[in-house]
């Protein structure tokens, strides 16, 4: 077996050294009643070639571009990934190393993550970002828990316009905590209904997503003001950070904690995982932050370098009093995002974001002309909600057969939104593809 270097002679000589007669004998400490009787019931080993055929076959049974045309975002976005990134990401010095506990032989990871933290902080308009969390959903849960720790308050309010699956994860994290989790309803505009917060007191956090699940840009400044008045923290979530290439980022609008998903930053969608939890906050809260942090320092000869720092927040030091239980994070995904931000640069982010906006606006306009309503008045970025004409669900199925996925039906997530669909158009959707969709859905 090509992964196991031991020859029979190796095994024999090693057994001699450890004074055992057989490999089995090494497991003498395992009581008989803990052992498995008989072999694992698993398929016989496949050769590299059989494995490749099998996986290739499986992969053919998933609908992806270019064969399929998707107009679906909803937390996972189709963006071009420059070829330099997969190449650089394949460098095994990055891929096959682990947490940089030993900085002298991990400077590659450490500097790259320090750069990631810096670029992420700038992207979100915050003072400090951590080295990554699992994904946008757990990042939001961690953000709310952090707010609870900081404010020592026991209630959080979460907008119903936040990605429904994120809210489910938050609910899972909160169940045993006894923290009260209330929901801020959505207004007719497609934005969070701030008026619902009138008179609500003692909140640890107000959580709002922008662009929100409906693609609408929220008025975060207003929520920040509201939070300030009530000494709550504004936790700003997001699923599409590319929006901050064009629109105001959460930090510039007064958010205290910002958490969301970084998949858009050059990561393959990969069925939703591995993803990338971006997490940032004001510097004064850094000691309450979850996750790892890379800091700048110097070596004995005064050369500047990087190390993991403030680890007294973390489980391996603080154990049950840690700010989070996270250990393995999504470091490689963070590296990927850093490369993407470096490749685009400031102007590139601006132009690409604008192109996303224009594509979606074009799609929106064309859909309107073909009988779709856009119920929500608020501005959007690269996705938006439409109310489809009667009988669209059949059309939707017909389109699937024609290898077009015309967005996401919202009813399963928002029963009140019958016939509503969330559609997305990024830079990867061409005018031809959009026009084809329009042709298909036009009466």
């Amino acid at each position, binding site marked *: 077996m090509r*992964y196991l270097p031991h020859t029979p002679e190796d095994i024999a000589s090693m057994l001699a050294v*450890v004074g055992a007669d057989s490999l089995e004998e090494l*497991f003498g400490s395992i009581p008989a009643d803990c052992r498995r009787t008989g*072999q694992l019931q*698993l398929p*016989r*080993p*496949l050769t590299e070639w059989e494995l*490749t055929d099998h996986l290739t076959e*499986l*992969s053919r*049974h*998933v609908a992806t571009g270019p064969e399929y045309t998707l107009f679906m975002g909803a937390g*996972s976005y*189709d963006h071009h990934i*420059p070829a330099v990134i997969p190449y650089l990401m394949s*460098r*095994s010095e990055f891929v*096959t190393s682990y*947490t940089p506990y030993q900085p*002298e032989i*991990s400077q*590659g990871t450490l*500097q790259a993550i320090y750069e990631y933290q810096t670029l992420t*902080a*700038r*992207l979100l308009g915050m003072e400090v*970002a951590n*080295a990554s969390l699992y994904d946008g*959903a757990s990042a939001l849960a961690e953000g709310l828990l952090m707010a609870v720790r900081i404010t020592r308050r026991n209630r959080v309010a979460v907008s119903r316009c936040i990605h429904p699956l994120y809210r489910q994860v938050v609910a899972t*994290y909160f169940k045993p*905590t006894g923290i009260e989790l209330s929901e801020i309803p959505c207004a007719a505009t497609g934005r969070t209904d701030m008026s619902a917060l009138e008179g609500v007191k003692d909140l640890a956090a107000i959580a709002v997503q922008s662009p929100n699940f409906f693609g609408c840009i929220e008025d975060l400044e207003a929520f920040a003001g509201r939070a300030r008045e009530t000494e709550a923290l504004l936790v700003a979530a997001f699923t599409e950070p590319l929006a901050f290439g*064009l629109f105001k980022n959460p930090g510039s609008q007064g958010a205290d904690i910002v958490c969301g998903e970084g998949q858009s930053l050059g990561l*393959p969608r990969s*069925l939703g995982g*591995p993803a990338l939890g971006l997490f940032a906050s004001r510097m004064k809260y850094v000691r309450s932050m979850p996750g790892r942090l890379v800091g*700048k320092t110097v*070596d*004995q000869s005064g050369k500047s370098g990087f*190390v993991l*720092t403030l680890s007294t927040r973390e*489980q391996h030091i603080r154990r*049950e*009093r*840690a700010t*989070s*239980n*996270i250990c*393995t*994070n999504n*470091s*490689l995904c963070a590296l990927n995002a850093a490369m993407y931000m470096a*490749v685009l*640069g*400031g102007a590139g982010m601006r132009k690409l974001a*604008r192109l996303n906006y*224009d*594509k979606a606006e074009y799609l929106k306009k064309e859909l309107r002309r073909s009988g779709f309503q856009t119920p929500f008045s608020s501005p959007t970025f690269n996705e938006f909600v439409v109310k489809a004409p009667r009988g669209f669900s059949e059309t939707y199925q017909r389109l699937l057969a024609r290898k077009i*996925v015309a967005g996401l039906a919202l009813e399963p997530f928002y029963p009140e939104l019958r016939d509503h669909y969330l559609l997305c158009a990024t*830079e990867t959707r061409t005018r031809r593809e959009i026009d084809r969709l329009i042709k298909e859905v036009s009466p």
Partner: protein
Amino acid sequence: MTETLGTTGLILNEPLLWEKGKKGRIGYSLPRADIETSSVDETLLGQELDFPELSEIDVVRHYTRLSQWNFGVDTGMYPLGSCTMKYNPKVHERLSGLNGFSNAHPLLPAGLMQGALQLMFELQNYLAEITGLDAVSLQPAAGAQGELAGMLMLYAYHRRNGRPRSKILVPDTAHGTNPASAALCGFQPVPVGSNEQGILSPGRVADLMDEDTAGIMLTNPNTLGFFEENIKAIAEIVHAKGGQVYCDGANLNAVMGMVHMGAMGVDVMHLNLHKTFSTPHGGGGPGSGPVCAKSHLAPFLPIPRIIKTDGGYGLSEDFPDAIGKLHAFWGNFGVMIKAYCYILSMGPEFLKKASQLAVLNANYIKDSLKDVFHLAYDKPCMHECVFSDKLQKSHGITTLDIAKRLMDYGFHPPTIYFPLVVSGAIMIEPTETESLENINEFIDACKAVAKEAAAGPETLKQAPVRTRLKRLDEATAARRPCLAD
């Protein structure tokens, strides 16, 4: 110092991204605009982001140079205890990158992602078979989230039985994530001391276990590299008090195909696919931490779970008692693919063989180094062995010094100062993919370092000397945190 694996060579310095580049450059190919631009509400516009601007070659050189400052499994032996730094097959990178996988949108209708669902369904079954448990959820994104899932399940289980419990037993050898995960669930971790054999004794567990204790959260084999021989008795004690047994499965690499977690009395456990199942650690992640349970706890598993439908495969949320979702979508699918490939490539015989060789390598190192470093517990080990700096202390040498000096010899240091029960711990996990020659080279390096230590502290205190940067000042970094430019 005679010719060793480690030496020095030409390496290039590289500044921070924003110290190079210049406004007006770009490393990205802007897509052509094939539609007119639409008007945008000016009041919403933000500043242009303050990102460095680099040409493509700048970016390529930046990360190529950075990569050369890193040490990975592909560079050399990486015996980082508890982390199972085994070889990561290259073919898995290629297969997980197949278009149908890497470009898959998570919210596709199930009918359009059957290939992915089949893979996950089969992986669930393989993991159930390997652990000897009944049901599996692939949701958790890493081990710690798997632990959290397990704790949430215990919480939900006791609640449904109408008797919420406030405590949980956690051995003093436990990994830091264990108490942290328990605490996140509102459980107060009650430490259980391990005995002079480095394992749990039923007596101590019996003394601490009560009706307000949700159960025990143990690791088997434990972090000292020993099999918890009394686990069955312990499980009985815990079960007798209505508690549940959680097993941290991060060390499964020692016992694949050898043990049956179900038979052992384990009710729920998590696995680290990024350790046992050879998926790369990526400089800190991503991982994947599936949670496996006996049938009585299966209803509480995180959702969705992958089920067989008459049509094929589906994502099911139809588990009313489930603790809910832990990941926005379906967990770290990209990592699961690699673990699935690993299981299929190894099959039953080679998975077992892998564990046997991992244990052989660890015992060989233990016996070869026991006169060189102080062995915390002088008895056969499983996949890893734990030494300490006791013998070197007298020369003013600490575990940290030894670790740093090993770098100069061309090895990644072992895990140090963990587990906490061994002061100055040096925790060595070679894994099965290291050949006898590599192991011997590592042993020789350890002996050479010990000899240098005996000769006086200077050499080790200055180590590492061959790396681009010398020993870094972690104290200042923490005192005056500089976390972003």
